[in-house]
């Protein structure tokens, strides 16, 4: 009996030990997850902190973690640097290129999914794989010859190359999921293909269209290279404006922080709306979110 009691006791101890080691393991895992999140967030946190700190605090050798926030940097950036104008430029270019991207991309994606035009899909993928800078030298020469440097036309057309492939690839998988029967029913009712596409297919794919549009908008908003070369004083979008802001003038840390927050904020808000689609978009449909 005493032997039984001993073995029961030891198994109890063992179970307690196992529980403890499991707890320790969970704790380590949670700490690692927290570490990952802290590292991912830190640059954003530092950006916000910098934007609300005075220049004196920003250039202190020992980082100032606690301070009275100031709006001064934001006021400077917005008032002195025509920030609203740059934001408007970014918005117009992103909205136009997304709109045209939908107009061209939606019928193309539909056609690829219905008629299995894999060659066309591949051509559009190659457009995404080729380094963007490859197109830039000829574009620059052509737009210069046409007097279109520093025009919305040049920027919209070039940003189209960023957004349209994205729209096509996301929408192919959406259109593939629309049952053929619905379309055929529309044909029986006397609809033309275009009519069925506009009145049946597109409304059914609305969530996909929203996701694709927002992604195309974000990619245009973030675009730097094309705008760097093709924009000018009248059309400069925010990323280029902010880049010039560091190249000239002395380094105004708070101003940079405020500008960085202002560019990033719209993107983060849009991301929250369509987070399920971000990875699908970034991988051109290779991975379903």
């Amino acid at each position, binding site marked *: 009996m005493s032997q039984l009691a001993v073995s029961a006791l030891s198994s109890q101890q063992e179970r307690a030990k196992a529980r403890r080691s499991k707890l320790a393991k969970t704790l380590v895992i949670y700490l690692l*997850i927290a570490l*990952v*999140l802290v590292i*991912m967030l830190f*640059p*954003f946190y*530092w*950006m916000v902190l*910098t934007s609300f700190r005075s220049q004196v605090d*920003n250039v202190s050798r*020992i*980082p100032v973690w606690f301070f009275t926030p100031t709006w001064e940097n934001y006021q400077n950036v917005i008032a002195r640097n025509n920030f609203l104008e740059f934001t408007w430029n970014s918005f117009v270019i992103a909205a136009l290129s997304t709109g045209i991207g939908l107009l061209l991309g939606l*019928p193309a994606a*539909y*056609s690829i999914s219905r008629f299995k035009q894999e060659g*066309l899909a591949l051509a*559009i993928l190659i*457009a995404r*794989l*080729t*380094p963007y800078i*490859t*197109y*830039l*030298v*000829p*574009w620059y*020469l052509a737009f210069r010859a046409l007097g279109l440097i520093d025009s919305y036309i040049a920027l919209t057309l070039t940003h*189209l*190359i960023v957004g*349209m492939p994205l729209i*096509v690839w996301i929408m192919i998988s959406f259109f593939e999921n629309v049952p053929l029967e619905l379309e055929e029913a529309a044909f029986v009712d006397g609809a*033309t*293909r*275009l*009519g069925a*596409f506009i009145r049946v297919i597109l409304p059914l794919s609305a969530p996909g269209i929203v996701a694709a549009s927002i992604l195309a908008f*974000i990619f245009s908003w*973030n675009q730097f*290279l094309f705008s*760097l070369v093709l924009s000018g004083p009248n059309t400069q979008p925010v990323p*280029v404006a902010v*880049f010039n802001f*560091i190249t000239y003038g002395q380094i105004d840390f708070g101003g*940079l*922080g405020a*500008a960085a*927050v202002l*560019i990033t904020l719209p*993107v*983060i808000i849009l*991301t929250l709306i369509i*987070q399920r689609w*971000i*990875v699908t978009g*970034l*991988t051109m449909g*290779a*991975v379903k*979110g």
Partner: protein
Amino acid sequence: MNRAGNFVDRYARYLFPLPAVLAILVLIVAPILANFVLSLYDWFVGGRPLFIGVENYYRALGDQRFWNGLRNTFYFTLLAVPLQLVIGLGIAILFNRDFPGKGLARTIILLPMVATPVAIALIWALMFNPSLGILNYFLESLGLPRSLWVAQSNLAIPSLVLVDIWQWSPMIALILLAALQGVPIEHYEAARIDGANAWQSFWHITLPGIRSAIVVALILRSIDALKTFDIIYVITEGGPGTASETLNVYAFKTGFQFFHIGYAATLLIFLMFTVLGAAVFLNILRKRA
């Protein structure tokens, strides 16, 4: 059905994708072809083009800066991609469980890849600052020597790689996380019954189960890493000297700072074949695997 509707219906497979195809021809195919023509000329913007045959190609092969750019391009990619693959896999495994705030955590790790690259680059530039940057403060707090980060030639690329890892490990993590959720749980249970430890089930079940996703992530990231522009150009402009100048940045400077159009086109052709060659090579590996 009217006649126009009939016509559209009959030729739908050509008419639907037509606008997108035209856009691709004008905006992508034409510039690529134009580069081949431009590469045969010695031409500075504002001057007269002089036909020189394949002279520019010989020039590139003898150009130290071209080889430096090619070397830096591969150094950056080969350092960044394997590291972010390992870190991304680690994050995916950490996140592949239920924990409080999982949805929020997934949203947080999306932020580095969607935030405007110019803004990210600016914040990292501030953090890298050798005298005032927060990174050196962290090093000192840990009792480590200060670093010059991007200001030191041999550290410039590793520092930029750090930014790339921060930015893109999460994307790999999310791709692999989706794949991990597809690995049947029964396989793990069977392995446990057979007495496999955690390490063995990782090697024999997890890794083979997500192999194709790993390859997809590897291909996508390698192609994008070879083309990295924004982060490098904003943080170092290829410097100090040419220490972090990739082929991409060198071609950009040749075209838009030195305005040597013909030679820039030649460099872009090399860049394009490097990236497309890598894409084809990786795809062949994928099919073999």
